[in-house]
């Protein structure tokens, strides 16, 4: 009995716009089926009409396991699967070959995905003082961003050149946005609601630098 209690169970989680059925790695293959059956029966009212992400984590997937999953679980209980998530590369291939959706669902309307669903803006020119670029997605600039120019993006900003002007990544609040500059000479960097100031004495000046948010801090990292 003690041992049984310690066994990990199949968990149903609520996600943004979908439900997530997580089959933990710690559960041996033969026990996956009763555990799934139990979880689905307990939450059948939740699962009805819902789109489900089937998260198989790192479990090695075989043709047999996938086949049984389809027949005994998905079709048997009438589930509607949004996508299959697996860290097993062989299993991913099997799923892809069968034309099944693999990976995190593309349409989930979480904030970072929203930013990435917009096309990247590729600018093959320099920005002069007084010029400003605003874009709801990632911005990639091949050229300089001069002192007095501004780039505001809801996503990431890459400046493949000298950055002297002001950049604001994740301007709609996405703190997982990054700023990358090939040659960093700016006096201020903004990501989300955080900002940091620099001068020519800073260790990052003139270097290739990546900026990101960690916790409540804006961090800089020199790139090779």
């Amino acid at each position, binding site marked *: 009995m003690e041992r049984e209690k310690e066994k990990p169970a199949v968990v149903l989680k609520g996600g943004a716009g979908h439900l997530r059925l997580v089959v933990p790695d710690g559960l041996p293959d033969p026990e996956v089926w009763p555990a799934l059956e139990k979880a689905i029966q307990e939450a059948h009212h939740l699962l009805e009409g819902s789109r489900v992400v089937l998260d198989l984590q790192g479990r090695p997937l075989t043709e047999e396991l996938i086949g049984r999953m389809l027949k005994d679980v998905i079709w048997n209980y009438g589930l509607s699967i949004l996508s299959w998530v697996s860290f097993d590369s062989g299993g991913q291939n099997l799923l892809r070959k069968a034309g099944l959706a693999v990976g995190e669902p593309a349409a989930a309307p979480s904030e970072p995905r929203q930013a990435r669903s917009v096309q990247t803006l590729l600018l093959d020119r*320099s920005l*002069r*003082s*007084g*010029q400003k670029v605003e874009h709801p997605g990632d911005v990639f600039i091949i050229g*300089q961003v*001069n*002192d*007095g120019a501004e780039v505001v993006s809801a996503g990431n900003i890459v400046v493949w050149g*000298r950055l*002297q002007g002001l950049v604001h990544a994740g301007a709609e609040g996405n703190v997982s946005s990054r700023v990358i500059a090939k040659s960093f000479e700016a006096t201020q960097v903004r990501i989300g609601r955080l900002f940091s100031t620099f001068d020519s004495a800073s260790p990052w000046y003139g270097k290739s630098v990546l900026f990101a948010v960690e916790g409540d801090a804006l961090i800089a990292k020199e790139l090779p």
Partner: protein
Amino acid sequence: MDPRIIVVTSGKGGVGKTTTTANLAVALAKAGYKTAAVDGDIGLRNLDVVLGLENRIVFNLVDVVEGACKLQKAMVRDKRVENLFLLPAAQTRTKDAVSAEQMLKLCDELRENFDITLIDSPAGIEQGFRNAAIGADEAIVVTTPEVSAVRDADRIIGMLESMSKSPIRLVLNRLRPAMVKSGDMIDVKDVLDILAIELIGVIPDDTSVVISTNKGEPLTLGDESLAAKAFSNVARRILGEEVPLLDLDAPDQKGFFGFLRKALGL
């Protein structure tokens, strides 16, 4: 040569637009081209003083665009240099006295009457600058090796580009080679790195410029200074000549040590 209209501008004030306009106008006229120097700074006229023509002004630019007098009547002819004419600004009016359409019409008339027209633009990026630039074909941007001046020049270049002026060329004014060497002044290369336009001349910082400005005698009238030479070279480059940039370190060769260095080939 087709008639050319060139606006001289900078964004920032006090970097030497008027001095540059006056010196280039004199040099171009001396080269045999019928030249008009137009003061586009309505309300704050200066070009007449720098050219030494202030006491001969009767009519001005606003009188011409308002139709109070003919263009020829308002142009002040320089008696020292053949071919040089000044169209002064009005001192008692403001920038609002002239519209963009009026400036375009004035430029058409200048094109019919002069080989080269230089328009001295007011500082700033507002209507005054726009009026000065609207009728021009090309532009000369004046800047000094200072961060603020370079940033403003960058802004103005962006605006000139969007107005389709071409070519847009740079005069780097008031350079001090000794300060650049000691790392206390931005280098020519750094400025060009940022502004990324063609350099048409580097003018050394020289006391002769201040003296000539106050006397109303542009250096290009006949001064021997390095700055005078630099301005003359800019004029020659405007006319399409290939002139190498001056070696601004040359004054070092004056004096005993300079002589010694020269003798030793250093």
